C-alpha cells in the first residue's frame, strides 16, 4: 500500500547548523504557514535566476528545477527573547562559522539545517528535511538560501496577524522523515 500523508499543521521550523558539537538551531513555533513549490526554469530566465547572491551553484542550468519556499511568522522570532534586536534571520548561526540567513551587505550564506516539523491529521509527527544528507536529516551544503524577507503590518480593523514572511530556495528535493 502506498504511503498516504495528510498534513494538519506546522508545529515548528528548525533552522541553524550542525557540527561535531551537536545541533545549534532556533526552533520557531509562531509559524502561520509554510509553503513550497517546484519552480522550473525555462528559456532566457536561466541566466538571471541561476545566480544566488553572486554564487552560481553547480548544476543550475536549463530545465533544472528547484524548490521555492515561504515561511510566514506571526511577526518574528528572536534568538534572545529579552532583546528585540535579535531577529533570528540576522543572528542565528546557520553554517557553523557565524554566518546568518540574511547578510545585510554581503552574500547570504547557505543554510545547512532546515527542518519543518509537521503534525498530521491523526497526530503523527512528520519532519520535512530540506537539507537532507544521509545518514542525517540535515547537513547538505550549498543547496538552501534565504532569498527575501517581507514584513506586513496593518492598522485595519480585523487584521488577524502582523506577518513577516521569509523566502528560500532549495536546490534539492525534500525528504520526509
Amino acid at each position: 500500500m502506498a504511503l498516504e500523508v495528510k498534513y494538519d499543521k506546522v508545529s515548528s521550523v528548525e533552522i541553524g547548523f550542525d557540527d561535531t558539537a551537536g545541533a545549534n538551531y532556533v526552533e520557531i513555533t509562531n509559524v502561520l504557514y509554510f509553503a513550497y513549490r517546484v519552480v522550473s526554469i525555462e528559456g532566457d530566465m536561466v541566466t538571471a535566476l541561476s545566480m544566488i547572491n553572486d554564487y552560481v551553484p553547480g548544476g543550475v542550468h536549463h530545465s533544472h528545477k528547484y524548490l521555492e519556499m515561504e515561511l510566514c511568522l506571526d511577526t518574528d522570532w528572536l534568538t534572545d527573547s529579552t532583546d528585540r534586536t535579535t531577529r533570528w534571520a540576522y543572528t542565528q548561526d546557520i553554517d557553523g562559522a557565524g554566518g546568518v540567513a540574511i547578510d545585510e551587505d554581503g552574500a547570504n550564506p547557505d543554510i545547512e539545517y532546515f527542518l519543518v516539523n509537521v503534525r498530521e491529521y491523526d497526530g503523527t509527527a512528520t519532519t520535512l528535511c530540506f537539507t537532507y544528507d544521509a545518514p542525517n536529516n540535515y547537513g547538505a551544503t550549498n543547496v538552501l538560501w534565504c532569498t527575501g524577507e517581507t514584513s506586513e503590518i496593518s492598522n485595519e480593523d480585523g487584521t488577524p496577524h502582523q506577518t513577516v514572511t521569509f523566502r528560500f530556495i532549495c536546490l534539492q528535493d525534500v525528504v520526509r522523515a
Partner: protein
Amino acid sequence: MAEGPIKLKSIASVAANALTATNVLSFREEFMMNIIPQFIPNTYQGLGVLEKAKWRVLTFVFDSDTDVFDLDYFVAAANIPVATTIVVTFTVADAAGTAETWTYQIAKSWIQRKEYGRIEDGASRNTFEYTVAMIGTKLIA
C-alpha cells in the same frame, strides 16, 4: 538566553523630514536580495537604475494624505529624496504596549506616490500610498 517570539500589534507612527504622521493604515517592508538586479527597472518602473546592492522597498498607506514625504515627492519635477532617516514606530502586543522602532538610515532612495479612490461623501477610504525604494541600513530598537 532563551529564544522566543516577538509580536507587533499595530503601527503607531511614521516619521520623516522632522514630521510625524499617525494616520497610517499599513506598512510593508520588502528586503530584496541582489539575486536578479536586472529585473529592478522592470518591476519598479521609474527607478531606472541597475543597482548591485541589497535594497528595501517600503510601502506606506495612509488614511488620506500626510506631509511627511512632501519634501521628497514632486509631481512636476524630479524627486529629490531629502529624508535620510525614516522612523516607523510600532506598538508591541504586550500588556504594557511597548514601543518598537524601525529606523531606516538611507544612503540612496527613490519615491513614488499613488492615490486610490476619490474624495467622495460616503467613501470608506481615500488612501495615499507612498513607495520608497532605498539602499541603506535598518536598526531595530
